[in-house]
């Protein structure tokens, strides 16, 4: 008889594999979309590989090739934590087919463990892209032996396990605590954001730890900085020792501790798995409702309200969809209490950037957070099997998507405005610049909403098994997010540089015109797509 873990794991992979759909689907349009998604993903992997390779070349040119293994280990670990933490809730707990799987003769530990391994395998192409590119970069300068290649590649499979387990453990604790509350999703979201704040603050804590080691004066190059981090984060150190010195003890430590931690975590998760899922999936009807005056809304507001309820009903949607707004809020509050020059000094690591130089970029900095993800990218796909509800209503596609766009505007504009006003106050920006920044912020929200909607409708996918597939792994999200983030970063640098030559208000004014024109174009495109769909 085959191993049950393998049977379940294979089935989990097959059931979400586009390749399986491609083999058996007869719909040519769907097949085309899948091939397109494969091409898109390959491009993203290649872009990531190119970035990693050029980073290694950079390190090699300044004589720091020896730190490449440690950087590789740290990069993979960080990505593993980030990828896992926001997926745990949807993959390990409260998933759609829970009843079906748990009614089969699998123990809870097997189900939870396989779900974790599924997450691990799904993320593996990202880790591999980083690892292979960095190994090639390392090869260019160090010319390691065949054994190094072999150890490097094998340990790449082990390296993400510990950070993934740490993130899964945090997710497990959050889910366990929140399962006891009636408003589970709200509690989960608040706790998740709490962990994110903690993680961000820990960066400064780690920095101060490094400084306490009396190495502040010697922290003149990245090499020592990385060595300090690897001293604190042992799996990275083991990886480095394993690949640079073929240290057998380090290899064994990394492998054995990863497996041991996996077994320990899933022993505990398995013991409380049914209890947690029972609490998450079942809440008794209160039966206390009494009919009182019901508020009526316009159709658009009603759709926007439906979107709001959809979001608050899903922790994954809420944490991912409102992360930007949350960050903008934190930034807004932070700049009111911490001197802007101190923040700038920290971020730019002493580069000669003054707060006055930032004036034309205020709205863009806020937009970097707010525009990270738009709900309009995800909401078309998130209709999923309930799509028939909106399709059967007597509303046009135009109205439906206008409602979805309205919700994103309701979400983004207040937070963007708050953060912009706070930064303007903190940097003592002139009144006109502040007003223009505020207008630009609103225009950027409009752009994010409409561009997101175009991506969301174009790459709409209703046949998902788990919300994570469209929220974190959807083609629409990737196409929206990456160019948007890169363009925003480049624009920040560009306007700061231009601001030293041209009147800053003229730059912001020009941006308002460009962004509002783009928002209008994408709005028309979104409406056209919506009508076509209807």
């Amino acid at each position, binding site marked *: 008889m085959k191993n049950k873990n393998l049977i379940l794991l294979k089935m989990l992979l097959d059931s979400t594999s586009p390749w399986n759909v491609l083999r058996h689907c007869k719909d040519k349009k769907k097949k085309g979309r899948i091939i397109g998604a494969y091409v898109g993903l390959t491009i993203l992997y290649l872009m990531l590989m190119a970035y990693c390779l050029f980073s290694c070349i950079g390190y090699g040119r300044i004589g720091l090739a020896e730190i490449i293994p440690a950087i590789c280990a740290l990069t993979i670990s960080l990505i593993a934590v980030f990828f896992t933490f926001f997926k745990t809730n949807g993959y390990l707990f409260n998933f759609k087919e829970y009843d079906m799987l748990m009614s089969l003769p699998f123990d*809870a530990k097997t189900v939870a463990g396989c779900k974790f391994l599924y997450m691990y395998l799904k993320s593996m192409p990202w880790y591999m892209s980083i690892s292979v590119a960095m190994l090639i970069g390392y090869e260019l300068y160090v010319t390691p032996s065949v054994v190094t290649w072999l150890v490097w590649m094998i340990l790449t499979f082990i390296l993400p396990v510990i950070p993934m387990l740490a993130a899964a453990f945090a997710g497990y604790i959050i889910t366990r605590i929140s399962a006891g509350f009636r408003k589970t999703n709200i509690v989960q979201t608040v706790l998740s954001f709490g962990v994110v704040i903690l993680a961000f603050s820990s960066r400064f804590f780690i920095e101060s730890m490094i400084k306490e080691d009396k190495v502040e004066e010697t922290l003149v190059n990245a090499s020592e900085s990385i060595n300090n981090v690897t001293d604190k984060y042992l799996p990275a150190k083991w990886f480095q020792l394993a690949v640079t010195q073929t240290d057998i003890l380090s290899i064994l430590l990394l492998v054995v501790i990863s497996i041991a931690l996996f077994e320990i975590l899933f022993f505990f998760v398995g013991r409380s798995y049914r209890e947690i899922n029972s609490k998450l999936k079942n809440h008794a009807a209160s039966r206390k409702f009494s009919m009182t005056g019901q508020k009526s809304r316009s159709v658009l507001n009603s759709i926007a309200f439906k979107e709001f309820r959809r979001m608050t009903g899903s922790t994954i949607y809420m944490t991912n969809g409102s992360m930007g707004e949350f960050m903008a809020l934190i930034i807004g509050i932070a700049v009111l209490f911490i001197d802007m020059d101190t923040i700038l000094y920290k971020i730019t690591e002493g580069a000669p950037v003054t707060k006055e130089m930032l004036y034309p970029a205020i709205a863009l900095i806020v937009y970097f957070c707010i525009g990270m993800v738009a709900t309009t990218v995800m909401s078309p796909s998130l209709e999923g099997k309930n799509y028939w509800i909106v399709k059967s209503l007597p509303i046009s596609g135009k109205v439906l998507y206008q409602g979805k766009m309205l919700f994103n505007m309701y979400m983004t504009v207040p937070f963007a405005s708050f953060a912009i006003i706070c930064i303007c106050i903190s940097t003592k920006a002139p009144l006109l610049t502040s007003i223009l920044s505020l207008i630009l912020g609103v225009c950027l929200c409009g752009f994010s909403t409409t561009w997101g909607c175009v991506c969301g409708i174009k790459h709409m996918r209703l046949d998902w098994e788990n919300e994570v597939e469209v929220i974190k792994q959807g083609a629409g999200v990737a196409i929206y997010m990456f160019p948007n983030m890169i363009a925003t970063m480049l624009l920040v640098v560009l306007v700061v540089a231009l601001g030293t030559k041209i009147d800053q208000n003229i730059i912001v004014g020009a941006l308002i015109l460009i962004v509002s024109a783009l928002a209008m174009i994408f709005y028309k495109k979104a409406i056209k797509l919506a009508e076509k769909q209807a």
Partner: protein
Amino acid sequence: MEKKAILEIKGYSKVYGEGKKAADNVTLTVESGDIYGFIGHNGAGKSTTIRAVVGVLDFTEGEILIDGHSVKTEPIECKKITAYIPDNPDLYDNLTGIQYLNFIADVFGIDSAKRMEEIEKYAGLFEITDSLGDLVSSYSHGMKQKLAIISALIHEPKLIVMDEPFAGLDPKASYTLKQIMHEMCEKGTAIFFSTHVLETAEKLCNKVAIIKNGRIIDSGTMEDIVGNQSLEEVFLEVHDEK
């Protein structure tokens, strides 16, 4: 054939976090060869009880035994001999029908020859053989229900637990399922199922339990419960009374 208790629910209670009792001291026994109907209005506690029986839902008090094994302490032993058909089967849309059935057969360790025979037999009876190579996402609700039923039957369970099994089935498939239920019972399988179709329950079941607000308000053999009335009349009577 000697009767043996296959499913024993003893003082089972389920209290939700808010303090509401979804099931309150439920006690019943399903013996081998029984077709046991579980009836009650919407929200009475039928599905909650069924999900606890199949080991999906944790419960607060009581004991549930399947062929002498405790659902709480020996869940795997219980699940090996149980088949569950939910009211709205959440099957994997991106698998084909045959891939799903093979998965279930693998989990229950059914050898190739046996699985071929069983799948051919039941897929033929439910007339979905031609669709087994298609993705589940292309199936109608009724076809998904048929696939879930086939997956429940191929491993020859001792206990079949079904939540509204006839919902979504066409008349022929309903008839086929009833025939299969009779055949399985003759072989000693116990069947425990919930339904709102009282006529079907009356014709099909030899035992019945009526649940209201989480409590069993009447249970026993169909003859004892119904007497000279119809099950519908009895149900409405006891439901309004107690």
